[in-house]
């Protein structure tokens, strides 16, 4: 049995920047425990001699010549923003009062 606790889920939610409600944390704690027990079986066959695969098809890094290509205009880039001042995205304070 995995040892997923409410505190752990609460910490993960904080890392993932999701303000979960206490009810959601309770529910997720139970569900994650079941899911993690089921997927932990990967370690049965993942022995030290097996190399990891990150990509299914072998790839090399991709470069292009360092010349400007077509890009979005500032207006296009800002078109979907919740708030902007015409040339920049607007957000609330980065630091809280006690920071």
């Amino acid at each position, binding site marked *: 049995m995995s040892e997923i606790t409410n505190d752990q889920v609460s910490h993960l939610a904080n890392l993932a920047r999701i303000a979960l409600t206490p009810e*959601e944390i309770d529910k997720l704690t139970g569900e994650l425990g079941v899911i993690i027990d089921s997927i932990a079986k*990967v370690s049965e066959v993942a022995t030290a001699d097996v190399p990891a*695969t990150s990509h*299914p*098809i072998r790839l090399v890094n991709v470069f292009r010549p360092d010349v400007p290509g077509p890009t979005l205009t500032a207006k296009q880039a800002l078109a*979907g923003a919740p708030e902007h001042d015409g040339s920049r995205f607007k957000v*609330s304070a980065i630091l809280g009062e006690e920071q």
Partner: protein
Amino acid sequence: MADLTRLTAAELSQKLQAREISSVDVTRAHLDRIAAVDGDIHAFLHVSSAALATAADVDTRRGDGEKLGPLAGVPIAIKDVLCTFDMPSTAGSKILEGWVPPYDATVVRKLREAHLVPLGKTNMDEFAMGSSTEHSAFGPTHNPWDLDRIPGGSGGGSAAAVAAYEAPLALGSDTGGSIRQPAAVTGSVGVKPTYGGVSRYGAIALASSLDQVGPVTRTVLDAALLHDVIGGYDPRDSTSLKDPWPSFADAARTGARDRSLKGVRVGVVKQLNGDGFQVGVRDRFAESLEVLAAAGAEIVEVSAPNFEYAIAAYYLILPAEASSNLAKFDSVRFGLRVNPKGGGTVEDVMAATREAGFGPEVKRRIILGTYALSAGYYDAYYGSAQKVRTLIQRDFDAAFERADVLISPAAPTTAFKLGEKLEDPLAMYLNDVTTIPANLAGIPGMGLPMGLAPEDGLPTGIQLMAPARADVRLYSVGAALEALLEDRWGHTLISQAPELAVAR
């Protein structure tokens, strides 16, 4: 005039080129069909207001003698995971409700350049996380064969749209089966190309090492025609392959014409059948094997012992990649912003926005992925899952030494009832048991109809898989099998779907 919505894209193409019909006729017929049945089906999240104008433009070009591609003037539905500059692109999520991207996905650009007519955007599980379309923030899609049942997922909207004759063609995306499983449960055809065969630029990413865009249609030839349009190298996708691709349409036509599988070695994957698979699915699969053998195929059993670990590896890799891909939904540059009561810092705003904007399955997978990537767990979970990926690739390599294509059922069951598995995430995850291995290995796969399950009268699907870069085999073998099965039945499978009630 005959009902234009019943024709395949290949038939429409022929009539358009012969100028027997206009693109405006075809497009209007499909828009009327959407108006008539989509209240019940809910395949579409958005219907384009520009479709008739686009169609008229194609007709003008044809009238002016412009040289047009084979699918010019044929309407198409687009999964809402793909960016379209003239239609909202939400990926089924509240966090992107109403968002209109400033650019087109490369595959959408290619559709426009080939003069297809975008009809609208199709419903999907939120950010493509699901096997039933029930995780859409905008309500589920209903299976045209039985409105109380799921159309599969995540691309249930695209599959239902073609199965309900709302569109002859659609685009889907497949991360763990989201094209092939909906095809199986709606009696349609869907193809996941080789990883890198079709550009992912402008496809809202779920798991970048698994995602692939592909065709959703009613026939193998139509899928091939669409694949020919969307495939090929794209400098804007760094995982895009530079391979030259043969004409998939030519392969499909040859396959259907010859109906011969002489010398083709067909490998039956032992682990993707048997216990846990519905009886009617197993019966129809056995029947398909007989049909293949009768056409000259050499049937061999292959074993893939590590497939047992595929779902576990997938549900580590996918949430890990998704949790980082979805970090971009931060309330700053696009999408929803929710300000918490009493204000707060930008991080408080992010957390409140993501709490309000993401549905339960998305939260579940982000938290799971964050856990799997945490220091102290990374090696045990994500690292091990990547090793399983290697083992699964080795299983495929060994299987393809003995077989030219592999086959299995495309889904373990027929369509289940809406709501049946919604409260049991693990049961929902098991629906992808047949399709996930191909994504982990990057190989191409096709789902196509193999008959109705006798016990419930619902469609079952067969899956063909080929080695990476050998997508063409899916089309030659798939088109042959489709033709042989239809010869045996005396009709297409989709023609057996019940007529839908039509709203007036």
